[in-house]
């Protein structure tokens, strides 16, 4: 069992913490002091002083000034700062991982994994800092050179959610930093302490390298301070928002009204298809992590399992057996061996119980779990037994994303296209997977007639993405891509350059304009 008091001390978390920083400097603020409690035991961890509108204004002005300096620093030099941030995170991996687990409720192994993801994106960004490139194109005009290049964009607003309280900040800020941008981070109101701890971890790197104040900004604030006004602020050209579809729609509307840009990573309703040609034990093992990992609170958690009718009973029985074992490992996620921790709060418990009730009202059947746990070890009131429910895809509750460990089993018949059609028949489009050893089924699934999601996997589950690939989804998931691949481009503005190194002035399309 981890010593949380020691963890807090190592991370510099005090009883009352400041919630606004521009890098090395922290500001005392007069906003409401918020308490952060652990969903594990319900105890208050510490408090954070939140920002006022005046504090926010000071940070934006600092960020604007910092951008003017930071954009002039060569990208590989910016990459070197990010490399050192990655190393600082390595040094504090165990402590930050423990705090992620304690404040958010995920098992310690996943807390460590989250910090590793931060380290990985720093490494990725360091390499990318030497690879920011444009293209040389062929001009139709003689002695003209046509090319594209990328320039820093400005201030990037980052809004993160409680389920990945620090990794998503790293995905965005590591790439934004090497791109020459500055960031303003609004963390989830449920997990402000992990944000404060992260900002403290990077502080010494910023001081050692004389990074201008205002490149890495943190503003812990309520939605009345860091809500619509933040989104409407014309000084911020890009917002990266992770959260619900409802929040994303609101943000897109407000930012879009001023023609700003958004990178949205919103809700998912992720399905796994298991065909008669699957390696069933492998499919079950992999899918169970997707359904109960992080207590079903990942954007990529598996919400639906679409199973061919010929193997349905076999898959169902294997799942139930696996869930019976998991039910003995629900508890304090900081205790080694426990696999399922709490959900974030009582509202999430109620949403879970409501979904269990609704699926039955619509004609579904509970195959396992669905209970609220009480008694010794569950005093916080935030623990539930993960639920498997037999359902049909068109049920209203199945079409929604319930951010809790409930999975719907859906039968299909005929060929794989029928399963794909069911999978695609939801409003969301984040992650998807198929288990099959048949190359025709696998290729169909990832073809243009296959999954309509941003992520489509073969023989692995829907969750647990690595940072090398672009992460994001389609439809109500928002369309954004962050982290790997060419996601860096969204943090920069593209400029097309035409240079005439000749002595004549030919016009494009052969237009004559002789004076």
């Amino acid at each position, binding site marked *: 069992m981890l010593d949380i008091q020691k963890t807090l001390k190592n991370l510099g978390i005090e009883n009352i913490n400041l919630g606004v920083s521009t890098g090395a400097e922290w500001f005392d603020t007069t906003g409401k002091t918020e308490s952060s409690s652990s969903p594990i035991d319900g105890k208050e961890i510490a408090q954070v002083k939140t920002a006022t509108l005046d504090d926010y204004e000071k940070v934006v002005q600092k960020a604007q000034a910092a951008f003017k300096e930071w954009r002039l620093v060569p990208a590989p030099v910016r990459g070197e700062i990010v490399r050192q941030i990655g190393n600082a995170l390595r040094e504090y991996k165990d402590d930050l991982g423990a705090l992620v687990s304690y404040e958010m409720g995920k098992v310690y192994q996943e807390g460590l994994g989250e910090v590793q993801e931060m380290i990985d994106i720093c490494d990725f960004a360091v390499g990318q800092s030497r690879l920011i490139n444009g293209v040389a194109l062929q001009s139709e005009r003689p002695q003209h050179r046509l090319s594209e290049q990328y320039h820093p964009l400005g201030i990037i607003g980052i809004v993160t*959610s*409680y*389920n990945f309280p620090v990794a998503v900040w790293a995905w965005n800020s590591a790439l934004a930093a090497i791109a020459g941008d500055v960031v303003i981070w609004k963390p*989830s*109101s*449920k997990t402000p302490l992990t944000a404060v701890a992260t900002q403290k971890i990077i502080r010494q790197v910023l001081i050692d390298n004389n990074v201008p104040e205002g490149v890495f900004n943190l503003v812990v604030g*309520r*939605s*009345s301070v860091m*809500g*619509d006004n933040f989104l409407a602020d014309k000084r911020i050209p890009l917002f990266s928002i992770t*959260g*619900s*579809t*409802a*929040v994303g729609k*609101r*943000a897109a509307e407000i930012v879009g009204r001023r023609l700003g840009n958004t990178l949205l990573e919103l*809700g998912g309703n992720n399905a796994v298809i298991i065909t008669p040609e699957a390696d069933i034990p492998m499919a079950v093992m992999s899918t169970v992590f997707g359904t109960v990992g992080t207590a079903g*609170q990942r*954007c990529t958690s598996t919400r639906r399992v679409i199973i061919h009718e010929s193997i349905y009973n076999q898959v169902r029985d294997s799942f139930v057996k696996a869930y019976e074992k998991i039910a003995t490992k629900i508890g304090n996620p900081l205790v080694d061996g426990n696999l399922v921790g709490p*959900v*974030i*709060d*009582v*509202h*999430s418990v*109620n*949403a879970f119980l*409501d979904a269990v009730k609704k699926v039955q009202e619509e004609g579904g059947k509970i195959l396992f779990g669905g209970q609220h746990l009480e008694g010794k070890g569950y005093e916080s009131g935030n623990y539930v037994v993960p639920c498997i429910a037999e359902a049909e895809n068109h049920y209203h509750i199945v079409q929604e*994303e319930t*951010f809790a460990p409930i999975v719907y089993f859906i039968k299909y018949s005929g060929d794989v296209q029928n399963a794909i059609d069911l999978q695609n028949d939801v409003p969301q489009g984040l992650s998807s997977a198929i288990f099959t050893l048949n190359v025709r089924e696998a290729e169909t699934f990832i073809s243009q007639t296959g999954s309509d999601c941003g992520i489509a996997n073969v023989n692995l589950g829907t969750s647990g993405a690595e940072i090398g690939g672009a992460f994001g989804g389609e439809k109500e998931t928002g369309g954004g891509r962050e982290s790997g691949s060419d996601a860096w481009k969204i943090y920069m503005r593209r400029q097309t350059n035409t240079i005439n190194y000749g002595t004549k002035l030919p016009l494009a399309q052969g237009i004559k304009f002789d004076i």
Partner: protein
Amino acid sequence: MISKTITIEDLVEEYPFSVQYLADKGIRCIKCGEPIWGTLEEACKEKGFDVEKIDFFVKELNELNEINNL
């Protein structure tokens, strides 16, 4: 005192019973585990409720709050 201009974030924190009350009307205050952004009035309008109905919800929420405080 609950007003229709209260943010959902404040409503959820200060009057947690409101979450279930509004859920029963088809208004979800919590999505993906976090309070939605905006005011009570905006959340109700999003679901198609008119001014009269919103005023009625506010009145009932305040009555529930009084009962809870007894």
